[in-house]
């Protein structure tokens, strides 16, 4: 029955309509028939194993202790926490690239344990440049000035009186994966891809406030600046700011966590995390970018002939298999779900393919709804492992038609030297004959 809950992707859904129209000759229809056959075969396997369980029923079940006693009382006042049996699931500070201080540092999301597209707030990745400030929202002020008719200031309660919007978006650090371009440095997907998380963000469009301040028509760039000890700041093109940039105070139904910018942060959908400035205190409007350290000496991409690509904001289409992933072990030949996430800073996910032979051949995975713009999308493929060595990977395609490249394809246009940002390459895991899953970057 395992396959019945496999939600089909957008392509498969459009195929249902074709089936009704009796056009069964298209490749999509054939894919659907293959999919259905696979479902039947797997349903058969499930039945067979159920029979096996029935035959082995020789020991009576014990009534669990939890049935025989009262549980814990309902606390009068408490913030609920995960089960004590889940304590291993936590953010982890990077230990592949070890910093010698822990204020300008990062901690990573345990993607191997993330069960849906939403990252719980306590597991959302962190990247700070001077630690986490604890800001009293009643004392926090946002200022808008520069090329505006009337400079304005806002308290948090002012900001929270505007009509709010809530949007599901992923957030990814441009440095995600920078340790694993050409050599296998990370063990787990938390280490290789854990500067990625996804949440529902609640706040107001920045355009609302810029309109209120009366923006000069000659304005071209906006500076966002934080109230943290690094005064972190970035220059953002005005088109993006007016198109879809938010000021957010809510994340997954509650106020932002301090690590995510409490009480207020910018949120720039689809772009590298660094531009979504946390603890936002100031927005300045100008006609030119500032060319700060954070947008010249850092967050730029090494290019051939000693050059650097600047203002490379978008996080391009990417995917990774999280289950199974590095550090896991398959318990023997048999059926395993292959699952993971796909996302694109340029739109929605249209397809994910998976390979089991290191990229020689690919098979279409099923996508799970919802298919949201610039949000994580889950994919799934039911794999029958024959027990032999395998090299598994995923490859995503987004709504612009862009296909996730291999590292070799990326390397044709860029210089992979030093700390290289914006790694959206296909990421392989090897499965050994003994079932061990390892980082297979080489």
């Amino acid at each position, binding site marked *: 029955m395992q396959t019945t809950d496999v939600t089909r992707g957008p392509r498969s859904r459009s195929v249902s309509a074709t089936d009704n129209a009796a056009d069964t000759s298209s490749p999509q229809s054939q894919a659907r028939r293959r999919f259905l056959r696979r479902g039947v075969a797997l349903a058969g396997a499930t039945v067979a194993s159920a029979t096996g369980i029935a035959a082995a029923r020789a020991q009576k079940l014990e009534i669990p202790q939890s049935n025989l006693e009262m549980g814990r009382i309902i606390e009068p006042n408490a913030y609920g926490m995960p089960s004590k049996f889940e304590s291993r699931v936590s953010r982890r500070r990077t230990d592949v690239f070890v910093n010698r201080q822990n204020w300008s540092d990062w901690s990573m999301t345990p993607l191997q344990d993330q069960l849906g597209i939403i990252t719980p707030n306590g597991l959302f990745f962190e990247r700070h440049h001077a630690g986490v400030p604890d800001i009293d929202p009643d004392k926090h002020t946002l*200022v808008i000035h520069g090329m505006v008719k*009337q400079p304005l*200031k806002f308290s948090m309660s002012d900001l929270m009186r505007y009509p709010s919007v809530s949007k599901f978006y992923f957030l990814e650090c441009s440095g995600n994966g920078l340790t694993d371009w050409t050599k296998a440095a990370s063990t787990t997907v938390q280490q290789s891809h854990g500067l990625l998380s996804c949440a529902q963000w609640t706040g107001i469009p920045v355009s609302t406030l810029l309109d*209120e301040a009366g923006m000069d028509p000659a304005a071209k760039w906006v500076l966002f600046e934080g109230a943290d000890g690094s005064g972190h700041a970035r220059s953002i093109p005005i088109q993006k700011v007016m198109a879809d940039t938010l000021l957010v105070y809510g994340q997954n139904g509650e106020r932002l966590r301090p690590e995510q910018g409490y009480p207020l942060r910018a949120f720039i959908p689809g772009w590298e995390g660094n531009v979504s400035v946390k603890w936002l205190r100031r927005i300045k409007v100008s006609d030119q970018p500032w060319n700060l350290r954070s947008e010249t*000496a850092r967050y730029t991409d090494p290019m051939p002939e000693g050059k650097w*690509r*600047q203002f*490379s904001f978008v996080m391009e289409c990417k995917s990774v298999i999280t289950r199974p992933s590095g550090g896991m072990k398959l318990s023997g030949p048999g059926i395993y779900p292959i699952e993971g996430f796909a996302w694109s800073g340029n739109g929605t996910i249209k397809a994910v393919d998976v390979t089991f032979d290191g*990229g020689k051949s690919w098979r279409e995975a099923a996508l799970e709804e919802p298919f949201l713009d610039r949000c994580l999308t889950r994919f799934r493929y039911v794999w029958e492992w024959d027990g032999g060595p395998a090299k598994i990977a995923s490859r995503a395609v987004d709504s612009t038609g862009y296909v996730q490249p291999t590292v070799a394809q990326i390397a044709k246009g860029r210089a992979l030297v030093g700390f290289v940002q914006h790694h959206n390459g296909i990421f392989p895991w090897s499965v050994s004959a003994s079932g061990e899953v390892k980082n297979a970057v080489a």
Partner: protein
Amino acid sequence: MRSHKFTGALALLLFSSLALDSADAQSKSPTPRFGKPIAEADIAPWNIDIRTSDGKGLPIGKGSVAEGKALYAAQCVACHGESAKGGTMYGTMVGGIGSFTTNTRVLTPGSMYPYAPILFDYVRRTMPMTAPQSLNNDQVYALAAYILNLNGLVPDNAVMDAESLPKVMMPNRNGFIPDDRPDTMATQCMTDC
């Protein structure tokens, strides 16, 4: 049938006039405006950004290489090391000029910054890490002068201020290219890839 159609048409008419009414009501509803006017002069303590390409925003003040060297020994050396060559926390801030065409790019203010005022903007807003924004403008200019001097970009007797700092020619001035992605052309190959 006929009366059905008639009722339908009437309903549609009523509905559309209602929709128009509500649209009117919407456009008449007040626009939330909760911002409070503030004068640029009152924002000044926060207004610390420098437009680094021409130094717009650089404040009054000045600092010499020698003053920067003394200040560095007191406030910076613990993390950044002797002569800014790297210390207990961070790597070198000196050298790397010419390294970008090799396989080991050494990123320092000297090799990487396209504009010298970046030093002023960054040091003022972030340094020292334990007490950011604690240095006065003369001190920040002095540190900028010292770091530039260690990188061979200004002479030993240089004094940096709002006029001189933007004029320092940085070797990586023309080292940046705009984002030209997508720069890969992968295809969705399924077999014999």
